[in-house]
């Protein structure tokens, strides 16, 4: 079955530290990849997406992610986090032209001022 794993349950960083959140998926076919963010008390918002082309994808708020097909990974990065980045981050995968998403379990990011 298709599954998505995220390496860290909770990450705590100080402001200006660099961030990398891991995401791996198990599906072997063509996939579309997404990172969503959920700020406390709010809905899921799309950070960035990968469909095809350049495997390094840039999203909103200074986030980027790199698709490494050979590693089945789509890690999220940000060079310098801010307190306002405190949120839950979800990696999601859906098959090419597939219907539903499979979400990872989420990683809680706490940024200390």
């Amino acid at each position, binding site marked *: 079955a298709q599954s998505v794993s995220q390496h860290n349950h909770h990450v705590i960083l100080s402001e200006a530290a660099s961030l990398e959140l891991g995401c791996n998926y198990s599906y072997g076919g063509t996939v*579309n990849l997404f990172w969503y963010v959920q700020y406390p008390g709010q*809905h*899921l918002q799309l950070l960035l997406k990968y469909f095809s082309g350049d495997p390094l994808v840039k999203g909103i708020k200074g986030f980027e992610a790199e698709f490494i097909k050979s590693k089945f990974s789509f890690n999220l990065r940000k060079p310098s986090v801010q307190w306002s980045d405190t949120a839950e981050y*979800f990696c999601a995968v859906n098959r090419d032209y597939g*219907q*539903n*998403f499979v979400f990872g379990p989420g990683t809680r990011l706490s940024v200390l001022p």
Partner: protein
Amino acid sequence: EPEVTQTPSHQVTQMGQEVILRCVPISNHLYFYWYRQILGQKVEFLVSFYNNEISEKSEIFDDQFSVERPDGSNFTLKIRSTKLEDSAMYFCASKGDSNQPQHFGDGTRLSIL
């Protein structure tokens, strides 16, 4: 920017009662989804809907659940006889075509007493 809207934001219901969660997807979107997020857990797919019928559903979406698009604008999720374990945040999502990301609503928090 158009958005997906969900009502109510919080629904409290006695166990065994029927509940209907309402969603208004983005107006020109064709694909509709329901997800749920039990407190502290990951987002789980429930059902997808396209061309006036269910296109895919998870094992969670049993006979107690149903979806409907009654009037061309609303997309509802009905739980016929609620259980305590139905307490969760329910997210509606929609997308315009098969190769686009889903846009999520703010969610409805369902509390079963």
